[in-house]
């Protein structure tokens, strides 16, 4: 398993942001994580990437528990947040070199890899300019290229398509798909249901900190007993007026 989440709970004061969720994501899987605002997606991702510690439960990345073996677990994972962070006074090339050295990529190998991912994500044109002048989309591309640089086993992305132009968005979708086909794992949190519908192998929907559905698109449709689009299923499962019973909708994990 690439990602194992077992009975994880996280509370902020009285608020139970994540409420005993369990998820298993296999190697070579492109997994979409959906949910309305405040459902617990970002908290789950922050716990997966080691930014937050769960109050209960365990998270394991490629067999390494994040709680006890975090340094190795973190070396196997890459995280692309929804608000991309870059040092304003560094160029994209300097930032990527820093990330490469951080993850211990061989010096002889580093320039080639950097150039490859910069070309792939069309970063090369502005790679030597300071990041403070980049647009959101440009930053997103640099951060994604830097995340791919150490070729992590698990790529966690939060809202990957925000701010990207259609051509780059298409490129990113292709990369994710190819990445998963190559035996790696992509864990993607998104509000863009069309993207999840188009490329995800499996989809989980979280609401009020609990997983209300998890399975392939076909399984979700089958269980929802209609052939509607993912959007309809999502709206039905996260309806605040009529919350579904969890046991009925959790399909596989």
């Amino acid at each position, binding site marked *: 398993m690439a990602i194992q989440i077992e009975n994880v709970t996280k509370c902020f004061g009285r608020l139970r942001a994540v409420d005993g969720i369990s998820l298993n994501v296999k190697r070579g899987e492109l997994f979409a994580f959906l949910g309305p605002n405040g459902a617990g997606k970002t908290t789950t991702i922050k716990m997966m990437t080691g930014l937050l510690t769960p109050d209960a439960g365990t998270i394991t990345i490629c067999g390494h528990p994040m709680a006890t073996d975090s340094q190795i677990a973190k070396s196997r*994972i890459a995280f692309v947040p929804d608000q991309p962070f870059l040092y304003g006074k560094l160029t994209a090339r300097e930032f990527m070199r*820093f990330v490469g050295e951080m993850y211990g990529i061989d010096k002889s190998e580093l320039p080639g890899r950097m150039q490859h991912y910069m070309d792939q994500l069309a970063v090369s044109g502005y790679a030597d300019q300071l990041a403070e002048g980049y647009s959101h989309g440009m930053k997103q591309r640099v951060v994604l290229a830097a995340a791919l640089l150490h070729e992590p086993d698990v790529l966690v992305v939060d809202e990957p398509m925000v701010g990207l132009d259609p051509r780059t968005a298409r490129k990113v979708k292709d990369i994710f798909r190819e990445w998963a086909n190559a035996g790696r794992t992509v864990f993607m949190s998104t509000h863009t249901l069309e993207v999840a519908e188009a490329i995800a192998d499996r989809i989980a929907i979280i609401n009020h900190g609990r997983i209300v559905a998890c399975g392939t698109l076909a399984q979700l449709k089958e269980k929802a007993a209609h052939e509607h689009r993912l959007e309809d299923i999502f709206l039905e499962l996260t309806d605040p007026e009529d919350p579904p019973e969890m046991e009925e909708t959790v399909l596989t994990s």
Partner: protein
Amino acid sequence: MTAIDAKTLVPATTRTEPTFWLLLRLKLTILRNRMRQLTDQTPLQLLMVLGFLATIWLGLYLIFDQVLRFIRQYEKEAIIALPYVFHLFFFSMTILLGFSTAVLVYGSLFAREEPAFLLTTPNKPRNIVAVMYVEALFFSSWSLILLGVPLMVAIGSVQGLPWHFYLTFIGAFLGFVPIPGAIGLVIALLVALYLPRVAKRSLMYAAGFLILVVLIIWARLWVISSTENITRQWVHELLGELSYVKSVLLPSAWVSKSIQMSIQDNSADAMFYLGMTILTGLCMSHWAISLVAYKLKPAFGRAHSAPTHTRNYTGWASRFVTAIAFFYLSRRMRAVILKDVRHFLRDPVQWSQLAILFGLLSLYLFYLPRSRPDGFTLQWQALICFMNFVAITLILSTFTSRFVFPMVSLEGKQIWLAGLWPLTRNQVMWAKFLYALTVTACAAIPVTYLSVRAVELSWAMGLAQLGATFGCCIGLCGLAIGMGARWPNYKEPTASRISSGLGGTINLIASVALVASNGTLFAFTCLYSLNERQLVGLEWHSATALAASIVISVSSGAFCMAIGIRKFRKEQF
């Protein structure tokens, strides 16, 4: 190479563990790029900053030099007083550095996106904390360097000390800085762990506490100073009140002992105290870094995810105050001002600095008449009247440069909204000017009135000072708003960074120049009045100087407003 090739993409192994030095190199690269950008794009600004620094250093050196020579005239008192200068200096530096390091470390470890990025990498928390700590020490200790280097050179030249004194002094400085730094690091951790989401308020409480301590000390000193004339007994009592700064338990006492011993050419004792200081600094840093690294993740989690103390704002008070203070404006212009008023009042960092500046000045003015129970001579009156005017207007210029200048830029990415408002752009600019003028005048006029009362000025001279101060308010606000619109920075959301840019620097220089010219003219006003041997009324010389001061202020403000309005009208949002 294909996009993703399963054969070539073998999992990257961590061959070398990311280290502290890697992060330090990153910070140095950022610093190098920043400097390169400054020299390439704004060399004038860099030159001006360096020029200012050199002027301040020279000025401080001359002050220290004169003070030390003055103390040396009274040999016995000098033996008592000189150690106190060091003890007080390093004691106050402990507080200042501890507080500033805490603020900087909190900003870099718990309140920025950078630690979120670094914590997802395989770098050890210890390395992250260590590099942020070093960075904070670097940026917080500039005040020590700014004050310490001229002090060191002044002592060296006045006492005619050998070269090894300078080495001891530098060693003492470097060894001392980590002690308050480590305290600041732990304070930042405690704020993140136990006061998350109220970091700004914590800052306020800490500042409030410091002011309270200063007030208590002040009150105790006041009791002594108001009952005694300046005699040897008075000096002894006054210094006795400060004896706690010499406590052997305070590291600040060790570092000052080290310097004193070095001055007395007692190398053995100087090395002993220096060693104690350096070892304590290193030990405290080690423990503080270990503790913060151990608690970094939970503290970061709490700082970023603790439930926010939500509060409903009705805003009736700000609406009420704005409606009264700006009754003469149209409802739409008042709406623009109300928005700015609410922004200002709901940001404690903004209004607290104004309150602290003018609060301390008011205390000084309240204290002033008690320091000379027999009343003022005519010369004292004139001198203090002039000094008060300069002090108030200098503080005003600091305030307008720091808070008023960024007002246009702070509209930020929403600046296009200003283009959609049913107001002309002239009206938007004037609304901002009137708002700034009202706030500055409300702070400056009562303080000036206090100063007039404190010096027991005649009504005519009092009115003259009030008029000159109000004129200065107009000039400084016009300068700040006008230049803020002429050199805006809509991308930067932080007021302090906006004011430290090129436009801010030019505005600061122009403001200081205006204060200098007004100060000179006001000095003439006082001088001519004094020559008349009365200082009760204004004869034509002093009235002319006063009128010139007001005309220069108002015309400078109007000129800059015209430039700013012109630029703002042409702005393509």
